[in-house]
């Protein structure tokens, strides 16, 4: 029940953000500081999700070459940089993970 409520609240908030400037037919604009701040939100949030997933795959910091997720993640980042293609990034990263897991085992 809590889970349903959680999903509903997130959905309502997301819709609220999407409709914020469309709700009324009158002009409205974000102040410049808000625009500048919002610009960094995706990069900051995503980076805060990515780095722990690569550097702490089992909870503790693991900077060794035995960390398959770190190596696969670095490869995927290079692929993302060169191709800018999401599927190629995820595909190469998953393939690298499977190969490395088999090799490192």
């Amino acid at each position, binding site marked *: 029940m809590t889970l349903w409520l959680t999903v509903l609240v997130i959905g309502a908030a997301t819709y609220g953000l999407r409709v914020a400037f469309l709700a009324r037919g009158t002009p409205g604009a974000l102040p410049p500081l808000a625009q500048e701040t919002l610009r960094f939100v995706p990069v900051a949030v995503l980076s805060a999700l990515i780095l722990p997933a690569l550097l702490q795959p089992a909870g503790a910091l693991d900077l060794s070459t035995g960390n398959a997720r770190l190596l696969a993640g670095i490869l995927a980042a290079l692929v993302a940089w060169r191709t800018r293609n999401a599927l190629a990034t995820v595909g190469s990263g998953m393939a690298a993970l*499977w190969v490395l897991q088999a090799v490192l085992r």
Partner: protein
Amino acid sequence: MGVFSARAEFIAGVRDELPIVVGVVPFGMIYGALAVGAGMPPAVAQAASGIIFAGSAQFLTAQLVGIGAPAAVIIASAIIVNVRHLLYSASTAPYLRPLRPLWRWGLAYLLTDEAYAVTITRFRAQQARGLPMLHRHWYLLGAGLTLWAGWQVSTAAGVAFGARVPAGWGLDFALPLTFIALVIPAIRDRADIAAAVAAGVVAVAAAGMPFKLGLLLGACAGIAAGLAVWRYAVSRTPSTQEAS
């Protein structure tokens, strides 16, 4: 480009969105599989694709549900991830403002990353060329509904097959990989790099905090760092000004 009738605009929206949907479908399936794997009941996992209709927030919700985070943390994290939709709302508003309320309120629901991307490109290009834009909202409707259908169906496929994916495949790793695919092209100048590094380092350092609060802490640190570098370095360098 032709006649720009409502029907032509709608079909143009569908046509432009289709290649993107091909790329989105695997992520819908991964989301469905991850959500069920994280312990979300299939009905909730599927309903979230309709109610939230925002991939990154849904991925995050599934992940946080999986580690048993409290509802307040899940909601706060998802809202932070989705705050970017304010930008989409603000930047489409000049084009959609003349519409009747039903259109504006309805189209707002379809304002996802993927539908916004094609729509704003089209609106700006047509405006720049002085083309008639009477039925432009039909374009967003076509693009938005196409993405919506693709997202619901791929979620359903993921939910259906998700429970049968062995844990040894490391399917959960597709999540950070998806985020890497999103973040790398978004890094355009030193301010973005500062935001990424600060957010990542703080999130790693604060990883011991309960319920992924390190995520919120890292995100705030990243935003502050990006803003600081932008204000005091990048925006004063004329050559990089265009990057914004």
